[in-house]
């Protein structure tokens, strides 16, 4: 069966350090992978998209890598700030699925302490 796994334990990190989150998947042929941020009581907000033929994408302090051999994406927040504290969700769209059908992981909570 298809699975998307993210670390269920919260990631506690000191301000200024790099937070690295993992998204592993099984039984998917992903067209692309997306990362979202979700704050308590709010809807997810899109951060980055990486396609299956791309290795790395960057946006400001965020970096995403995608290894289709390992079936893994890593999400990095460099120079982390307390405002980065949130839950981060990865989501996959499979090549065999309808356009826009995203399957989400359960998310990893990040807590950045000053």
């Amino acid at each position, binding site marked *: 069966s298809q699975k998307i796994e993210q670390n269920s334990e919260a990631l506690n990190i000191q301000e200024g350090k790099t937070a690295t989150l993992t998204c592993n998947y099984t039984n998917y042929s992903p067209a692309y992978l997306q990362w979202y941020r979700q704050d308590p009581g709010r*809807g997810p*907000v899109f951060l980055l998209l990486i396609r299956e033929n791309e290795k790395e994408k960057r946006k400001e302090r965020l970096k995403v890598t995608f290894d289709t051999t390992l079936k893994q994406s890593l999400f990095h927040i460099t120079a982390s700030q307390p405002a980065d504290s949130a839950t981060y969700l990865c989501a996959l769209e499979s090549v065999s699925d*309808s*356009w*826009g*059908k995203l399957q*989400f992981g359960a*998310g990893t909570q990040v807590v950045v302490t000053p």
Partner: protein
Amino acid sequence: DTAVSQTPKYLVTQMGNDKSIKCEQNLGHDTMYWYKQDSKKFLKIMFSYNNKELIINETVPNRFSPKSPDKAHLNLHINSLELGDSAVYFCASSQEGLGTLNEQFFGPGTRLTVL
């Protein structure tokens, strides 16, 4: 300006009742979605409409019926509510197609509590 809006934000009701949640997007997108996020925070897609046409219909009880009167609106009607329907329901929209980013824009969510 709110991009994707949902009403109501909170909905508390008794088992067996029928309720509706409304969603509107002003982004000009062609595709809209309903997601359910349960107590374990798992976000699962329920339905998707593209230009008022149903394109994704996951394994959802037929007590749930989406309706899209136009491409800017996607409502969710739930009949005979059950305790297990308690969750946060999110509406989202996107502009699908070649050359687009395919990012989805989410509404603020509707927290449904069934007593």
